[in-house]
């Protein structure tokens, strides 16, 4: 036997000792790697035990949900595991159902806080001028000025919106809310799917799909008015959630060659929960004592009664801060990355400038986040003389903070585009900008997107800079404009973490922490999904 031979080769004991040492070392390394993950698991388990009140539920409750939810979902997962076609359809179904639901709720809630009329006003001023420029180029032919004219027209349009705001605002306010929502949500979605359908299937299909989106919105509106629900919300849900879900399901049922059974994924999950909840109330089983309630998600904070405390303004405030931060920092960050990767020469004074920029960016990435808070404080309070803690200041401060992360991520994405692509483009006579716009950027987009979404996920949990610039912890309504006071979910967790009352300490705060973790996880999962999809595509292409 081999072992015996080895033993005779080299005095048995020392060899066995060596093998043992190797195994011990490997076990030690694996154990250390698991320490971090175990800590992560403990954090999630402890906080969600309290937030969901899992310990309060009777054993029969666990049995019930095991039968209605865990068993079907596990069986379904086992079934799709070895069938790639089903898994692909399943992923698509999950993405469209939950992705559009989350996006629709956002598209409803953010304009609701800002005032749908104001959003409509600025949307019109921001989109009509560039559309006019594109229309002009379509009829009279493109010129060198068309490209630069588009962003300039957007900026001029929004500027004009600000100037004319006081005149036009009273006119717009007379509109009913849901009419504004039809314009700011339904119409853009209808236009977008119309253009897409026009490219894929032709004019008739385009009119059909766009019409279907509008019809879904109107159906939502009619239903809501008849049943006394919020008409604006149902307009958004009709065009942003129902229409795409129905489209994907019908499209898959009619055109997919295989794997249609994957459409059942969301049905199994949601159906399991609904069935469980129905049986729970029918049979009178003691359920969870959950703090993750509609009150928490839809009401504002109360420091007196834990049962009435909610974090709705904080959730919307966090999302607004992060969204505005993305608008401010991503163009600059991606621009800087493009300069460093595609434009900056490696020699001469500009080469030295590029090296200096690289060193500077890696240093900025190491500056503690509180220091960025001081920068924001000095910049907005001392220099611009603005009120502390406004939405714009919060977003800009976090934007500066995430600039190095965005730049590094975009640089990596640009670097991964093979040089042969650039050479090919140059060889066909394209200029540097044309190469960038038509060849390099489209290839780099998934990588850039992954990095930027991760930056958003990081920013949503940032607390220290917001404390430094004086963002209010508790507000009773979400911010309603750029210069309105901001608020953020992590700030509320910070402020309430030290509360000694157990219903706050291990109740509401735990539930708020779960909400924050879920927001962070949604973003990370989106980024990881984009990356995996992109990696699969790029290996296929090779």
């Amino acid at each position: 036997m081999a072992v015996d031979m080895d033993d005779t080769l080299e005095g048995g004991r020392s060899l066995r000792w060596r093998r043992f040492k190797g195994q011990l070392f490997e076990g030690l390394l694996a154990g250390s790697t698991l320490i971090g993950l175990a800590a992560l698991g403990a954090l999630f388990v402890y906080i969600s035990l309290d937030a969901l009140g899992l310990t309060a539920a009777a054993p029969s409750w666990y049995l019930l949900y095991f039968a209605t939810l865990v068993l079907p979902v596990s069986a379904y997962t086992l079934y799709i595991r070895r069938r790639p076609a089903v898994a692909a359809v399943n992923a698509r179904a999950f993405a469209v159902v939950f992705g559009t639901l989350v996006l629709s709720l956002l598209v409803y809630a953010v304009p609701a806080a800002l005032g749908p009329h104001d959003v409509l006003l600025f949307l019109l001023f921001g989109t009509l001028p560039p559309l006019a420029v594109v229309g002009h180029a379509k009829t009279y032919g493109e010129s060198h000025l068309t490209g630069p004219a588009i962003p300039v027209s957007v900026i001029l349009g929004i500027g004009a919106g600000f100037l004319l705001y006081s005149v036009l605002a009273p006119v717009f306010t007379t509109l009913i809310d849901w009419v504004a929502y039809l314009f700011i949500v339904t119409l853009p979605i209808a236009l977008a799917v119309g253009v897409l359908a026009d490219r894929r299937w032709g004019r008739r299909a385009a009119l059909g799909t766009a019409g279907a989106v509008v019809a879904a919105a109107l159906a939502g509106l009619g239903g809501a008015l008849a049943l006394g629900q919020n008409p604006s919300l149902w307009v958004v849900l009709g065009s942003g959630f129902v229409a795409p879900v129905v489209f994907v399901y019908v499209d898959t049922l009619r055109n997919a060659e295989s794997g249609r059974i994957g459409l059942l994924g969301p049905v199994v999950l949601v159906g399991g929960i609904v069935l469980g909840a129905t049986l729970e109330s029918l049979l009178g089983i003691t359920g969870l004592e959950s703090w993750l309630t509609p009150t928490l998600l839809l009401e504002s904070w109360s420091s007196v009664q834990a049962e009435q405390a909610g974090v709705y303004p904080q959730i919307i405030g966090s999302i607004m801060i992060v969204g505005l931060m993305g608008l401010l920092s991503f163009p600059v960050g991606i621009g800087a990355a493009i300069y460093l990767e595609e434009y900056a020469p490696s020699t001469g004074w500009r080469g030295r400038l590029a090296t200096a920029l690289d060193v500077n960016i890696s240093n900025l990435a190491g500056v503690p986040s509180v220091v960025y808070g001081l920068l924001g404080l000095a910049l907005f309070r001392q220099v611009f003389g603005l009120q502390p803690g406004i939405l714009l200041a919060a977003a800009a401060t976090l934007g500066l903070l995430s600039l190095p992360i965005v730049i590094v991520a975009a640089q990596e994405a640009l670097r991964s585009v093979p040089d042969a692509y650039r050479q090919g483009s140059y060889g066909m006579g394209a200029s540097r900008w044309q190469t960038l716009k038509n060849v390099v950027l489209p290839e780099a987009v998934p990588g850039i997107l992954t990095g930027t979404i991760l930056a958003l996920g990081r920013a949503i949990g940032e607390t220290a800079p917001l404390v430094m610039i004086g963002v209010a912890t508790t507000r009773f309504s979400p911010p309603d404009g750029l210069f309105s006071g901001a608020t953020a979910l992590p700030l509320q967790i910070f402020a309430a973490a030290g509360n000694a009352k157990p219903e706050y300490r291990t109740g509401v705060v735990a539930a708020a922490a779960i909400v924050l973790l879920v927001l962070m996880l949604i973003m990370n999962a989106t980024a990881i999904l984009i990356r995996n999809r992109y990696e699969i595509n790029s290996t296929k292409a090779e």
Partner: protein
Amino acid sequence: MSNNQPTPTLQRDGLAVKKEKLYGYLLAGCGVLTLLVTLGIILSLSGQTLIFFSEVSFVSYITGTDWSPLIGAADYGVLPLISGTLIITFVSALIALPVGLAAAIYLSEYASPKARSILKPGLEILAGVPTVIYGYFALVYLTPLLDGPLPLSVPVVPAGIPVLPEFTLVIPSLQTFNVLSASVVVGIMIIPMVSSISEDAISAVPDTLRNAAYGLGSTKFDVSTKVVVPAATSGIVSSYVLALSRAIGETMAVTIAAGMSPRMPYFPDILRNLADSSQTITAAMVQIAGAESRSGAVFESMFALGMTLFVITLVMNLLAELVRRRFREEYS
């Protein structure tokens, strides 16, 4: 490199060339903006810091052992805050540096592709958990957990030996706000930083080195510990320095879990330093920012602390960069 591409501008009209140049300048402007951010940080910090030192003497700031800007006659001695920061950094390093390096070696040398595909996103999520949640976890869940078996009396020198006096090490019970739980969560949150940068350095070690060592009859253990890790030392050390700098600048977790009581370290009974509440530089800044009245020297002291923090972390980041460049083994 794409930079060396000759741009064929032979037959473009003037407007096209101007447009190309304009885009180039705009993108360069985005790059230069990052320099302005650094400049802004330095200017805003140094301006207020200079005003602060015109009111409070620099010597009393740097040698003072009492930090109480908000109570009565304000004292601005930074030493308690620095010692608080260093103790937390040290204890968190005890956790993060070995664990992070071990994780890096495991991921790069031992783990199967399947294990990697699970472990790496897990570590990414560990890095993405908001620090305020780490602080909440430390305060509400970790402290009672760690406090479970305490207070302990560990007899270091067993009783009954006539020569030596009996000596028992007492580990005191934890306060509500304590350094130990804060240090543990800070250690956990910087593990991914150590592991990801170290792993990059370890995977950059060329396979020829490994194969040569195997050819000489080394075991995998020998290859990992005697060839790969020494070859990646510069990257590992730089990851260590960056992680320490991150721990020094960490704010929310230590503010929530370690409390707001600045104090000089206890000397003979060292372990009390872990069990008691303390305050770091960052936590002091947050406390002032959240205070009701913050004007004059109190407000400016925030910037002086920020400057202190900025200088410490900048030096450490530059050090990490230097280590990486100077001691990098070039393989080609």
